[in-house]
C-alpha cells in the first residue's frame, strides 16, 4: 500500500520555457530504456522473489522513490511545453510530435520509441537481479550526465543534478544488498 504526498520529492522550477526540444531530450528518463519508469517497474517486480528482508525492503523503497522521480521528470516536461505554440514546435522541427500528441505525454524515449517490458528483467537469482539493478543505476547516471551536457537551463540542471546523485546513492544501497545476499548464501552453504 502506498501513501501519496501531494508534493514533489524535489522542487522543480524550469528557468526558461517554453523549450520543447529540451522536453524531448528529457523524455528518455520518462519512458526510455534506462528511465525512471523502467527503474520503478523493475524493482517493484523483482522484490517478490529476492531473499533477505533487507533486499525486499530496499527494492520496495527504491522502486517507490523511482515513481517520485517519474513525477519530477514529467513536471519538467510539462513546464517546458505548457506555453509552447505550434510555431515553437515547428521551429525546432518537432511538428511530428505535435501532430500525434499535441502536448500529451507518452511512455517513449526521446526518439519516440515506445516503452517496452523488454527493457527490464527478472531472473529470481538474487546475484543476477542485483547486478542488473546496479547496472541500471549506472546507465541512468550516465544518461543524466548526457542531459546535463545538453542544457544550460539552471532550473532543469538543478533537478537533474539531484536525480543523478540519487542514482549514485541507489548504486551504493544495491551494492550493500548484494553484500548481505552474498553473506547469506555463503552462510547457508555452511549450516
Amino acid at each position, binding site marked *: 500500500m502506498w501513501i501519496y504526498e501531494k508534493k514533489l520529492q524535489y522542487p522543480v522550477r524550469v528557468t526558461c520555457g517554453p523549450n520543447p526540444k529540451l522536453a524531448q531530450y528529457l523524455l528518455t528518463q520518462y519512458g526510455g530504456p534506462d528511465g525512471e519508469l523502467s527503474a520503478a517497474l523493475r524493482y517493484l517486480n523483482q522484490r517478490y522473489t529476492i531473499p*533477505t528482508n533487507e533486499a525486499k525492503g530496499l527494492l520496495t523503497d527504491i522502486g517507490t522513490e523511482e515513481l517520485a522521480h517519474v513525477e519530477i521528470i514529467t513536471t519538467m516536461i510539462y513546464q517546458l511545453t505548457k506555453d509552447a505554440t505550434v510555431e515553437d514546435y515547428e521551429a525546432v522541427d518537432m511538428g511530428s510530435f505535435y501532430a500525434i500528441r499535441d502536448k500529451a505525454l507518452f511512455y517513449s524515449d526521446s526518439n519516440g520509441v515506445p516503452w517496452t517490458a523488454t527493457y527490464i528483467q527478472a531472473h529470481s537469482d538474487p546475484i543476477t537481479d542485483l*547486478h542488473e539493478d546496479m547496472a541500471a543505476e549506472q546507465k541512468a547516471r550516465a544518461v543524466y550526465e548526457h542531459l546535463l551536457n545538453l542544457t544550460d537551463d539552471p532550473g532543469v540542471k538543478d533537478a537533474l543534478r*539531484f536525480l*543523478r546523485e*540519487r542514482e549514485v546513492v541507489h*548504486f551504493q544501497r544495491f*551494492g550493500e544488498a548484494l553484500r*548481505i545476499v552474498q553473506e547469506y548464501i555463503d552462510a547457508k552453504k555452511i549450516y
Partner: protein
Amino acid sequence: MMHTPYPGIYPIPFMPMYVMMARAYVPYQTYIQAYPLTEAIQKGTLFPELYQPYIEKDPHWKGEK
C-alpha cells in the same frame, strides 16, 4: 537487542574478510556523519562520502577542462 534474521552474517564488514574471484563487492557503509537536512535535500544525499557530483564538460574546450 538488534534484530538479526540471518544468524552469523552480521555485522557486514566494510569489505569482505575473504575476497573471492568472479565476485563484485561494494564497501559497506557505516554511519560517520550527516549533512544538515536542508543541505542534504539540496545535494541529494545525507552523507558526505556519497556526495559525488558530476563535473561538466566545458563545451568551449572540446570536452576538456
